[in-house]
């Protein structure tokens, strides 16, 4: 459960304060599927970073599973990121010199998981994203969709409670995008909280809830189904049943 209470994030840019988030309060329950939309600079990425403990609020309180993490020391935040949160990025962020299996495995390296167990979990995670046959390939030898699926395997291999995806389909063609969305939603159905930042209404409409951000505030709370009517059906990816 993610509880944000009057969370503000202010950057100083060129001597001027820049309000990336203004007193945002929001509760996202465990297992929810939430999309965050909004124009560039509206604060949606900052929201995601704070939710993922990569960044701290300037003021306000963030409780994760009822525990106030706002003031935790850096090493504790690392532990939370390691154990509770999985990140998925628009540009995949795979390590180019490592194979798919090694890319999936290294979060467990930092967590100190013993090698034999690592191998099993890597295989399981890659099988879960349909890449059991490509474990030895390097990122350069994989297609965009395959790379993002490796990234999903990496994000889930530590069995987190929350998946945070920043434009996960932004660099993919629509077929690959559909596959990636289907995977993320399958993870959500297994109980993971899924928060997706996206520009694409076609992606956002699939979420149960949509937060529309503007100027550092949550301007609108919508249901995914509300978006569907506003968008021509042709532009929506047809998602196959998982």
């Amino acid at each position, binding site marked *: 459960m993610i509880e944000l209470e009057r969370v503000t994030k202010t950057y100083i840019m060129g001597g001027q304060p820049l309000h990336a988030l203004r007193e945002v309060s929001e509760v996202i329950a465990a297992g929810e599927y939430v999309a965050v939309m909004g124009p560039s600079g509206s604060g949606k*990425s900052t929201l995601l*970073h704070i939710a*993922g403990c*990569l*960044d701290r609020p300037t003021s306000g309180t963030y409780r994760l599973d009822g525990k106030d993490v706002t003031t935790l020391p*850096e*090493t504790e935040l*690392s*532990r*939370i*990121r*390691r*154990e509770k*949160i999985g*990140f998925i*990025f*628009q*540009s995949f*962020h795979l*390590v180019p*010199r*490592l194979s798919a299996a090694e890319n999936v495995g*290294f*979060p467990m*390296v*930092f*967590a*100190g998981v013993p*090698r034999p167990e690592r191998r099993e979990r890597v295989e399981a995670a890659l099988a879960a994203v349909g890449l059991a046959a490509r474990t030895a390939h390097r990122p350069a030898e994989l297609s965009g969709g395959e790379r993002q699926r490796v990234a999903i395997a*990496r994000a889930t291999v*530590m069995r987190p409670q929350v998946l945070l995806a920043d434009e996960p389909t932004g660099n993919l063609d629509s077929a690959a995008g559909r596959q990636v969305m289907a995977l993320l939603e399958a993870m959500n159905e297994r109980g993971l909280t899924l928060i997706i930042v996206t520009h694409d209404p076609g992606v956002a409409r699939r979420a149960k809830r949509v937060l529309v951000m503007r100027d550092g505030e949550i301007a609108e709370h919508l249901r995914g189904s509300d978006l569907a009517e506003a968008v021509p059906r042709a532009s929506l990816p047809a998602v196959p049943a998982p």
Partner: protein
Amino acid sequence: MRASDLLQFASTALLRHWLRTSFSLLGVAIGAAAVVALTGLSEGARQYVVGQFAALGSNLVIILPGKNETTGSFPGVGGVPNDLTLEDARALQRAMQGIQLLAPLAMGNETVEHRERSRQAAVVGTTHEFLAARELHMGIGRFLPPGEMERGGPLVVLGVKLAAELFPGENPLGGVVRIGDWRMRVIGVLEPRGTQLGMDLDEIAVVPVATGMRMFNRSSLFRILIKMHVHADLDAACERAVALLSERHDEEDVTCITQDSVISAFSSILRVLTLALLGIAAISLTVAGIGIMNLMLVSVSERTQEVGLFKAVGARSGQILAVFLTEAVLLSSIGGLLGLLLGRTVLGIIVMLYPTFPAVSPLWALFAALGLSVVVGALFGVLPARRAARLDPILALTRNYS
């Protein structure tokens, strides 16, 4: 995080940029090789010099006329030392305990002639005991016969080179040479020995000491060599000898030195030289360290996104520090190992070219070379590794979207 994982991470990262990795390795290897080779050379020089002294024979006490300390008196007052005479030598032999053997030594430079051949040669006046005191060996014939020091005789033993020059193609034994105004019969030739402490023992002529002193027209001996028994206290022997002679001369006008003190003086001088060379070699390792730092800084900035990613998946700053530090230390220690091999190869080649020169790097130098390499890697790896560990994960992730 496990050590094996750290090593694997580091080695894949280094192998990816094998070209620049190998240049950095080369830098460290040259530094480490310099440590090994330079200390090997100077250690070889030390052993060579010490070996030269040791070949003179150990347990040697040497007495020479004159006091080589300033007395503080007016010049000329008590300045001229008394002669060191054969009687003094005999007195020492009688009175001192623990003497294995004693050889008086008179030195001169004379023309040695055989028929139309003539040579300037160092002529050593001494006794039968000289052979054992200097640990020389006879090639052919025999050495001066044992007997009273005062008993001279027209006998000479030649160094091997001198013998060959005066008697080309003949057997010198029984031949007669003229030394100055003296006609002397050759009774033996020394085994080749070569130059020792600046004196070529292959070019000397050895005559009985009494004959030598008359020949050179000297009243004083040049040296008295005393070889003590194996476990004798050399310093005490020196004191005793000086005391004895001072009593005979009514003043302290002789100097006594021990073989050990000379060896240890030279040895310590050359050890300082070794350390100085080690310092010079360490400088080249430092330069290699700066190369590593440069490489690691480039590596960190290239891998900014990777660092951000590591943080996003929950790596602690300390773990990221460890990842990059391991890389630097792995690089420098492999370089150090290569340097050991390189240095030993260089020394091996030197020994092959100059077989008499004992150029072997001491064991501590091998450890020093390797240790310094590791330290250099750790030291110069810290700055880049800290930079990586302190990267802001958000900036690191969002910079240069690829």
